[in-house]
């Protein structure tokens, strides 16, 4: 009997204890689907704080802190458990454990050497009670999230969690459908079947795209980052559309956890922060309450990495410092513009903030073009490698990206503009342009599914597709009567 289901149930319980505080906002279905992702996000953040603290690291202590913190929060702010909440909570747990059991029983995970480094570090953190001086190389080479979460596996005597990443993949697909239904309005219309069909088809596209599916079973942080990115974009969209800032409570833990998920996370998370700051229907204070803590978390975590890994590993001290400071520079700009707006009553700062996603995209596009023209040898060979990955059928993404291009080209003709869809559109565009900028400056890029740039591209797939789901699904034809 493996103890893995116990750990999965614990992550779910932690997440549920958090989401139940805002159950009236999300509804029970989305809360159930979001409980596991939020649980692993909260556990990961607490583990990162513990590893930074000057005391002996223990997975048991991390769990105890999470449980205690959420118990206090529920005692202070929580409401009594309703029968509906109980049914959803138990139902979600049964489904989760059922899926976990399948993945534990039939081990479908795949590993590479990079996986081994990450798992080994997790095991050592658990055994040696924290980071040791000889971990310098890995601290500046690989994101630590997976190593931290796998300390829980080590504490339970497991090599690693076999079901954790496949469950993240399933959570992404499930949230894709639930977010899609809510955005298109499945429960309110008489055309429930037709409006549910679009997100279900979208999720099926993702589930059958081999390049996407494979990453769900590859022991790296890719599926977690994909999931968290999608949750933040979805929460921003609903907070903006429903003018309810409480959605940001869903976005905050997963947003904070993205700091630990990729070494380039400060770059790839930047569009998320910029777009959220420009979401005008969310009160300014609430936007800042997300952007400032997440940016500060990046700054603190990267400062910690620089100190702990000084001059070791793949990323230099300068690169780590610059990346860690970038979100803070944006947050500082947003704060200054807000201060000018409040103190002088000027309108232009808000206009600048609203235009920031497009300014960011323009700057990134210009950078890629300028760099390619200045250093064509490096840039063109990297772009060729990217094209090779996208166009080779054996990597299993060519149909997905072809369909995206076709749907994007047809969208202006056969769909109308949809309020808020730009949140997904700008996030996806900014992310892809950042990837292009990283690609042109990366001389070692290669054509393969294991290449980190190609993995980064896989992570944005749900966001890109959800934009298209919103465009194509939000206005049903008039001959489908609405309720």
């Amino acid at each position, binding site marked *: 009997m493996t103890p893995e289901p116990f750990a999965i149930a614990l992550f779910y319980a932690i997440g549920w204890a958090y989401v139940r505080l805002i159950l009236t906002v999300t509804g029970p279905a989305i809360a159930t689907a979001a409980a596991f992702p939020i649980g692993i996000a909260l556990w990961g953040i607490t583990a990162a704080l513990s590893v930074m603290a000057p005391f002996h690291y223990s997975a048991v202590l991390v769990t105890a802190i999470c449980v205690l913190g959420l118990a206090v929060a529920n005692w202070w702010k929580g409401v009594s458990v309703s029968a509906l909440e109980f049914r959803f909570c138990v139902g979600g747990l049964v489904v989760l454990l059922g899926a976990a059991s399948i993945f534990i029983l039939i081990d479908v995970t795949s590993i590479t050497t990079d996986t*081994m480094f990450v798992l080994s570090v997790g095991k050592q953190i658990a055994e040696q009670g924290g980071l040791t001086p000889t971990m310098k190389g890995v601290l500046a080479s690989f994101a630590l999230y997976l190593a931290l979460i796998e300390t829980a596996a080590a504490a339970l005597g497991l090599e690693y969690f076999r079901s954790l990443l496949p469950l993240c993949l399933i959570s992404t697909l499930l949230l894709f459908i639930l977010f899609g239904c809510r955005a298109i309005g499945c429960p309110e219309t008489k055309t429930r079947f037709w409006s549910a069909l679009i997100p279900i088809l979208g999720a099926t596209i993702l589930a059958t795209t081999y390049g996407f599916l494979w990453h769900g079973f590859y022991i790296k942080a890719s599926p977690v980052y994909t999931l968290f990115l999608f949750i933040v974009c979805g929460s921003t969209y609903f907070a903006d559309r429903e003018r309810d800032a409480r959605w940001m409570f869903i976005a905050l833990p997963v947003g904070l956890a993205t700091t630990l998920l990729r070494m380039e996370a400060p770059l790839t998370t930047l569009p998320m922060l910029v777009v959220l700051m420009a979401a005008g229907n969310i009160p300014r204070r609430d936007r800042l309450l997300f952007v400032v803590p997440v940016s500060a978390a990046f700054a603190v975590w990267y400062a910690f990495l620089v100190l702990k890994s000084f001059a070791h590993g793949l990323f230099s001290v300068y690169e780590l410092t610059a990346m860690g400071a970038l979100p803070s520079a944006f947050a500082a700009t947003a704060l200054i513009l807000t201060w000018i707006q409040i103190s002088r009553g000027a309108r232009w700062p808000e206009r600048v903030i609203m235009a920031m996603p497009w300014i960011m995209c323009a700057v990134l596009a210009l950078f890629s073009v300028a760099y390619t023209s200045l250093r064509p040898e490096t840039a063109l060979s990297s772009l060729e490698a990217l094209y090779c990955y996208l166009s080779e059928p054996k990597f299993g993404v060519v*149909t997905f990206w072809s369909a995206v291009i076709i749907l994007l080209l047809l969208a202006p003709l056969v769909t109308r503009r949809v309020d808020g869809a730009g949140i997904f559109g700008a996030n996806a565009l900014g992310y892809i342009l950042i990837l292009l900028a990283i690609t042109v400056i990366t001389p070692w890029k290669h054509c393969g599914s294991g290449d980190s740039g190609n993995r980064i591209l896989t992570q944005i797939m749900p966001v890109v597709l959800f934009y298209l789901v919103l465009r194509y699904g939000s206005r049903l034809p008039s001959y489908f009567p609405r309720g």
Partner: protein
Amino acid sequence: VSLQSPTSNSRTQIRSRFHASGLFVFIFVAAAVIFLNISNFTAISKSFLPLAPHYGQALQYFLGQEQNRDASDRNWYAYYLIEQNYSGWTLLAFNREIAFFSDMYAFNFGGIKTGKVFSYDPDLTAAEANGLLSRRHWRGEIKRYGSLVIVLPESDLSPAHVIMVRHEKTIFMVPETYLPERMRVAE
């Protein structure tokens, strides 16, 4: 009463019809993608197998494979041996590079507790090298060293110092107590 002209009204209707067709366009494209994805699934999945060595207990398989014992597999077997034999030991090395298995990855991945780099005489005589080779050991070809010999400690040795020494183009990783007296490093 509509203020729009009949022409603009019919144009709006045409546009509206076009917009309404979006649902069917999406369903058609999605169905095509899903069909193509599923029909190509088996062919694609085979090409991924080299990246995924085994579906089922991947980690155990990966570590235990005989074929992973040489440099072409990034010396994973060496890391495995270190984890099995030297977890919790302190590594002493005569330069920084020697404490690494490759340019980017530290020795520590095998479970070494801590590493210290400082100057000492690491050169063994031929007789001393042969003496170490008579002990239980593993030898692997590693691009940056030439050859790496990991001398395996007896089970009764408790974690202490493990020292990197060399003879010609062979690097030895040896428990301090197995070295000649003159090579035992005073910190």
